[in-house]
């Protein structure tokens, strides 16, 4: 490795140690194959593409908590695995000294995406329903027949968001930037405060860049940078807009 300017080389004996570490073996072929199978179970079937379930993360303690937080990725949660797969699939939180620790969302260098901790749904303990003792002479109340709100479950919402953005992604990759833009706007209307806003905004910038809407792309990039200064999508969207400037 060439030394950066202004830095002295490491002492030869330390360099030798580092050489030894560079020669360290990776996982055995058997382990690699087993891990591949586990990955296939996680990302390949029954789960929306890109679903993240943390391998480090663990199950809830003492049976009191149901946990379902997710480490971030471009595409979020999918449907839970069937029961026979659950043993093989690690849960997405970590237990440290019997406390549930929600891992910070994943963030990566070049393209990726993050779900901010604030957007993650923290696991909630299951509380026993409070039962008010009823007096025997009390007349039972009429059953409540009012229609109950039919809010979709958070996971359903996330899956819907994900499915919509997947359409935008595919459209972009197929060169249909206009379609991608329509989808992102549809997402914005349907999920104004959704969990995948950051991803949607990044896709929108890429779509605008694909359509050569230079000013709109620049404006969207400015807003994105301001809203998500540490987004892992930044390099990608910046590159896309920069490439417009070069044309």
């Amino acid at each position, binding site marked *: *490795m060439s030394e*950066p300017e*202004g*830095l002295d080389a*490491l*002492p030869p*004996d*330390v360099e*030798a*140690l*580092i050489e*030894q*570490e*560079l020669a*360290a073996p*990776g*996982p055995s072929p058997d382990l690699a*194959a087993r*891990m*591949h*199978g*586990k*990955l*296939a179970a*996680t*990302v*390949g079937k029954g789960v929306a*593409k*890109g*679903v*993240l*379930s*943390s*391998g*480090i993360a663990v199950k809830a303690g003492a049976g009191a908590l149901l946990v379902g937080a997710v*480490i971030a*990725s*471009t*595409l979020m949660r999918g449907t839970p695995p069937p029961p026979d797969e659950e043993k093989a699939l*690690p849960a997405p939180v*970590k237990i*440290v*000294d019997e406390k549930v*620790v929600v*891992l*910070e969302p*994943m963030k*990566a*260098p*070049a*393209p*990726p*995406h993050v779900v901010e901790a604030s957007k993650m749904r923290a696991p909630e303990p299951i509380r026993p329903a409070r039962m008010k003792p009823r007096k025997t002479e009390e007349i039972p109340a009429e059953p409540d027949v009012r229609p109950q709100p039919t809010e979709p479950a958070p996971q359903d919402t996330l899956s819907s968001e994900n499915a919509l953005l997947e359409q935008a*992604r595919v459209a972009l*990759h*197929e060169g249909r930037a206009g379609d991608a833009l329509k989808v992102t706007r549809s997402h914005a209307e349907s999920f104004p405060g959704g969990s995948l806003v950051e991803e949607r905004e990044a896709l929108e910038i890429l779509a605008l860049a694909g359509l050569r809407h230079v000013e709109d792309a620049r404006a969207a990039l400015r807003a994105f940078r301001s809203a998500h200064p540490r987004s892992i*999508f*930044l390099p*990608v969207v910046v*590159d896309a807009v920069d490439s417009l400037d070069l044309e």
Partner: protein
Amino acid sequence: MHGSIVTRVQGTAAPDFDAVYRDGLAHVWKCLRRLGVRDKDLEDAAHDVFVAVHGHLHSYDVTRPLKPWLAGFAWRVASNYRRAAPQRREELVASMPDPADDRPGADQLASGMQQRTLVLRALDALDDEKRAVFVLHELEGMAIPEIARVLETPVNTLYSRLRLGRALFVQQVRRLAGKDASP
């Protein structure tokens, strides 16, 4: 090896996931280890890395080298790992041998495994920021501007951390190897 997890997306330049896994697993594995993930947790951490990689494969720029891209994922997973369990670090530091009492002998150090252990132990003396830049530069061979992109940190800050990290690393190696030349 199991069947293909993901095939190349038709009409796109997205790489084949199996190929990325095959080419990148050893690199990710070692990277995680150097960034502080304990051996017993490596499998799970590598799993997390590749699940994330799978989710971001579409946005991988195939014109860029794969390893730095993967290293970024590994760094994030390792960072979460260390942050989620700070006590691991304390346990490890506490378990470091006192050179006066438990000095590795010359013949022990002759073994590659001992030397690699020494490197990892010395790395544990670095805080996360210095460790990241030291590992990514000295062991993963990434250029500082590339690391700046991954860590989203100014280049000058990274040079400064690298300089300090190197000094601490050397000092720690000397201490652990019982070769501290300082008076």
